[in-house]
């Protein structure tokens, strides 16, 4: 019997999760980046003994504290939603999430809460060396906390290191290291935290530029800009490098996402990378329309970035739906033949797997071993396509192409812009003309919201680009959702929106006030 799920429950639950994640991610990247910048500034203070560096460190520490305090625990709501709105998914992922999230909780609590206290309360009470160590451990702790949640997210993009137990209907971890060190997890972690470092650097440069524009705290501003622009340049280059690594993984493990990121409907060999373009509005797979109204392309680059080969074949959305091409990589080389199969065939395989799961259970209930063994064999063979059972048509496997395409291109364009900004600021600083370049200072100030935009669009690519999957190929959103009433999700959506907006306003107001006060002698607490 086919049971329908209220589509509005799915939509509202997705919207609620997106809202929470977006707000949460407004606070996290600054914590990741600013914590390291503070540790670097304090290291300079300890090395030089110059009290101005202590004052600088304390000023940025105050802003770090505000961001940390307002943002702390906003991510916990995502876990509430797993249990209420996404209970099938929560059950299905089994202990895969349990271990990383438990480690994350312990690390966040012990490392951050212990050493943050020393950072803020420990000036003149503990030795300089111990205080500096605490600042570094706070930064490392914050980044390690991010590691575990990103490992969990990476597993959803590329499930590895587990096996499905049909008796408990849960995935069980069989290899912790495969989960932790999957190439998707490693790239995701490095790319995400380095985006936080760039956020921290631009935040420091932007605020310092404001001080220069106001002709206040000139020494503090120049020193802060020097540290932040060097840190920002190094980390933004690393961000580009890890972004390339992430795209390479997407090409292998989530080719549909890559096609959506590039608005590529028809695959070919030696495909160029769209530097900029406007998609044809209303374009649908298979409608024969051109995908772009206008585009500027860098020849062969997508083949190189995706497959490290100028003539590599990159499948488009339509190819992935229809199958019949020879993939450069197969996400499941053991299960898939040399020729890619169509989504229609995957749907059939998925349905075979789900039906076999039911037969297995019935056979076990009556102790029919031969039947249960046979059903189990069929289910295991087809399990890699388990989630396709829930797609009602092949086109359901296509994510929202315009949202993914534009988000990806905004993120990349801003990433390039940040590198140029760091170079320009460093150059102006070296030539001692930064204070006179008011346009550059204003540009630095207005880049602060842009770095948040880049960060958010990055997550939109990662999460909307993998739709309809909650767990790639194994579980789409419509199978993951709880059987709950949409109205309750609507109410909590607006409650979250109100609470988070209040928190954001509080953060901006408190931060704005502290910035306008500026660094105090000995800093503020």
């Amino acid at each position, binding site marked *: *019997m*086919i*049971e329908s*799920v209220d589509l509005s429950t799915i939509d509202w639950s997705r919207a609620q999760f997106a809202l929470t994640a977006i707000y949460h991610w407004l606070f996290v990247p600054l914590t990741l980046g600013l914590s390291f910048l503070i540790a670097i500034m304090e290291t300079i203070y300890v090395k030089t003994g110059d009290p101005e560096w202590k004052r600088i460190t304390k000023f940025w520490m*105050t802003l770090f*504290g*505000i961001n940390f*305090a*307002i943002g*702390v*625990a906003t991510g*916990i*709501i995502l876990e*509430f*939603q797993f*249990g*209420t*709105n996404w*209970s*099938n998914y*929560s*059950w*299905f992922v089994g202990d895969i999430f349990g271990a990383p999230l438990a480690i994350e909780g312990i690390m966040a609590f012990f490392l951050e809460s212990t050493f943050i*206290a020393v950072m*803020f*309360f*420990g000036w003149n*009470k503990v030795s300089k060396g111990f205080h500096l160590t605490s600042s570094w451990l706070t930064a490392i702790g914050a980044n390690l906390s991010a590691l575990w949640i990103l490992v969990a997210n990476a597993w959803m993009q590329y499930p590895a290191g587990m096996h499905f137990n049909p*008796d*408990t*209907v*849960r995935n069980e971890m069989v290899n912790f290291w495969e989960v932790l060190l999957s190439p998707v997890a490693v790239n995701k972690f490095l790319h995400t935290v380095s985006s936080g470092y760039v956020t921290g650097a631009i935040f420091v440069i932007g605020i310092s530029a404001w001080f220069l524009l106001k002709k206040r705290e000139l020494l503090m501003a120049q020193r802060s800009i020097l540290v932040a622009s060097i840190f920002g340049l190094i980390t933004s280059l690393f961000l580009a490098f890890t972004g390339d690594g992430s795209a390479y993984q997407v090409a292998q493990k989530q080719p549909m996402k890559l096609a959506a990121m590039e608005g590529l409907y028809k695959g070919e060999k030696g495909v160029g990378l769209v530097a900029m373009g406007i998609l044809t509005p209303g374009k649908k797979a298979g409608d024969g329309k051109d995908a772009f109204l206008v585009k500027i392309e860098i020849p062969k680059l997508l083949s190189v970035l995706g497959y490290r080969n100028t003539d590599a074949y990159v499948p488009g959305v339509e190819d992935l739906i229809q199958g019949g091409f020879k993939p450069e990589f197969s996400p499941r080389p053991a299960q898939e033949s040399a020729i890619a199969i169509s989504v229609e065939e995957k749907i059939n395989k*998925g*349905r075979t797997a*789900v*039906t076999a*799961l*039911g037969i297995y*259970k019935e056979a076990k209930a009556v102790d029919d071993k031969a039947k249960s063994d046979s059903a189990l064999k069929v289910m295991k063979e087809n399990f890699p396509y388990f989630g396709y*059972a*829930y797609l009602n048509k092949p086109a359901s496997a296509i994510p929202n192409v315009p949202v993914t395409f534009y988000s990806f291109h905004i993120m990349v364009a801003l990433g390039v812009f940040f590198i140029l900004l760091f170079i320009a600021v460093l150059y102006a600083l070296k030539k001692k003309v930064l204070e006179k370049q008011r346009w550059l200072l204003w540009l630095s100030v207005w880049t602060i919201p842009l770095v948040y935009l880049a960060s958010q669009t990055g997550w939109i690519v990662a999460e909307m680009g993998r739709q309809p999957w909650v767990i790639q190929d194994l579980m789409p959103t*419509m*199978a993951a959702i*709880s*059987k*709950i009433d949409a109205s*309750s999700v609507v*109410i*909590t959506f607006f*409650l979250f929106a109100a*609470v988070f907006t209040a*928190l954001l306003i*509080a953060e901006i107001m*408190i931060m704005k006030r*502290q910035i306008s006060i500026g660094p105090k002698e000995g800093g*503020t*607490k």
Partner: protein
Amino acid sequence: MRTILNFFSKIWYFYYEGFRSMTVGRKLWIIILVKLFILFFIFRLFLFPDFLNSKFNNDKERSDYVREQLIRRK
């Protein structure tokens, strides 16, 4: 024993003095406490019950339910 007590007493005074001398931090702590109250007391308790734990008593019932849901929804 005396050394251990002395150690914990030092930690206590470290935090006590730290919180007492806060300026911006006090405002932030109020925000943190109000936020935690809203998240854990109001949201968690009244608006976000664990769906499977609230409906079933043991893991077998939960797995049977999820299996049935996954089979019926295909």
